[in-house]
């Protein structure tokens, strides 16, 4: 059974709310006045996906592994000048279209994880809501712009095996 306190619970409850009120007045509230001040999301926060277009080979791995199929990729093969003089021209995959529909995306991060060429990154940026739902489809230039906001991966905690991960 519960404890039998000397102070009646009714009075204790009043004390809790009163103390909270005093703490709010003297030390400030726990809320953040959002448009005026902002909280910094953690570095790992999954805010928006950024695309480094040069790295993308349009291999479609991300589009295939997406659980709700919100990535649209189109590409074609192109001949690029050879690396060494006199070599044969290389075949590269040129990206025509890389769209992510953020209205569908459920921010699971699988695409970023499966990308074998480090073309996709998470950015903690979160302010990209749109009045029209169609504008949530970000094309490759817009996804490229997010690259600026991508932070360095945070350092790991003590005892972590650093070789294991990239």
């Amino acid at each position, binding site marked *: 059974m519960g404890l039998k306190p000397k102070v009646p619970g009714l009075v*204790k409850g009043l004390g809790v709310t009163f103390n909270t009120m005093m703490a709010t007045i003297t030390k400030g509230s726990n809320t953040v006045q959002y448009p005026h001040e902002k909280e910094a999301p953690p570095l790992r926060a999954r805010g928006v996906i950024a695309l480094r277009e040069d790295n993308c080979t349009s291999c479609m791995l991300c589009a295939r592994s997406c*659980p709700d199929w919100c990535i649209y990729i189109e590409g074609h093969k192109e001949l690029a000048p050879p690396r060494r003089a006199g070599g044969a021209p290389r075949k590269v995959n040129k990206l025509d279209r890389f769209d992510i529909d953020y209205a569908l995306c459920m921010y699971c991060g699988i695409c970023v994880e499966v990308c074998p060429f480090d073309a996709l990154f998470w950015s903690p940026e979160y302010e990209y809501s749109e009045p029209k739902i169609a504008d949530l489809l970000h094309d490759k230039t817009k996804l490229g712009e997010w690259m600026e906001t991508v932070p360095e991966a945070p350092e790991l905690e003590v005892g972590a095996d650093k070789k294991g991960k990239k």
Partner: protein
Amino acid sequence: MTMLGDRQRLAYIASQAADARLNVELETEGMTLNIGPQHPATHGTLRIICRLDGEQVVWAEPSAGYMHRGYEKLTEVRTFPQVTSLVNRIDWLGSFANEVPFILAAEKLMDIEAPPRAQHIRTILFELSRIANVSLFLGDLGVQLGAITPVFMAFRDREYVLNLIESATGGRFHPNFDRIGGLKDDLPKGWIEETRSVMRKLRTFCDEIDDLLFGNEIFQSRTRGIGVIPKDVALQYGLSGPNLRASGVDYDLRRDQKIAMAWDKVDFKVWTHSDGDSFARCWVRLQETREATLIVEKLLDTLPAGPVMAKVPRIIKVPEGEAWVSTENPLGEMGYYVVSKGDLGPFRVKIRSASFNNISIVPWLLRGVYVPDVITILASLYFILGDIDR
């Protein structure tokens, strides 16, 4: 225990009286009250059809399924890594805890085991999601019973836990951090220190709730002796988690089951209560939140070094077979029965979610109670709609 006997007898008499009243000739027409699908007390879209006589419930039945999202079917057309991003939406308040049993089942089929560090971090995050889940319950309980302040305190302090989960996993609500063979990444620097300070804050929160709600005489008079579930009935209806432990059954999968998680590395107390009433259910949850903060701290003390990912192939194919793994989730026992035919994705997944079984006792429990007690009982049973409807 004699008290319990009296209460049980009273509850029985009340339900008999409710039955008898239907049979008398001077029966007046009852009023059917739909609590839900849109109702503040069902925090979601659960509909409870109550037939009332005055304010007394004569007959009640929950009608679930308004938010059915078909996860069992969805998982059949997803690959194994994709499934975790789906299933952590089942119980959306303790989402990391949903991933764990599925991953464990897949690991069991593939016959691999996560490295010890990964198991530790999994357990820590599991307990954190329990805290996030149950602390919201503690606040929500206040709202259901008419006290408006606790819910804001709950949101305030749950925020710290969510921040922790976010800085470790990247997702506040849907971490999707668990992988077959380990975890996606290791913890970021400074996380352990932060967690310790947050755990201290959470214990202060528990004390505050204790003073504000649990010690309050009005709260006690609203919950004590209301919605008594005797031990045998609880077992018959397949209750699990705190609801079962509040009926005096000392059963906790964290302790009673040998599983590839780190709970066996620490000592913790499994809280039970002998009364089985609404107060007991709430009280057990409060104690479990306290206990979970202690578990997290103890696990942080014993965090081993090493990798967080076992060697797994890049493309995961799970060998043919069937596996059942369940864990003690914030709401109760949650398990996945995974059938694999050796493909990229599961052939069939059966999800046993705690809330669905927990609300199955509602028709039995709501007979003969008053409308305000319906709310108390529903609040104390504590279900998450996503966990009922899946």
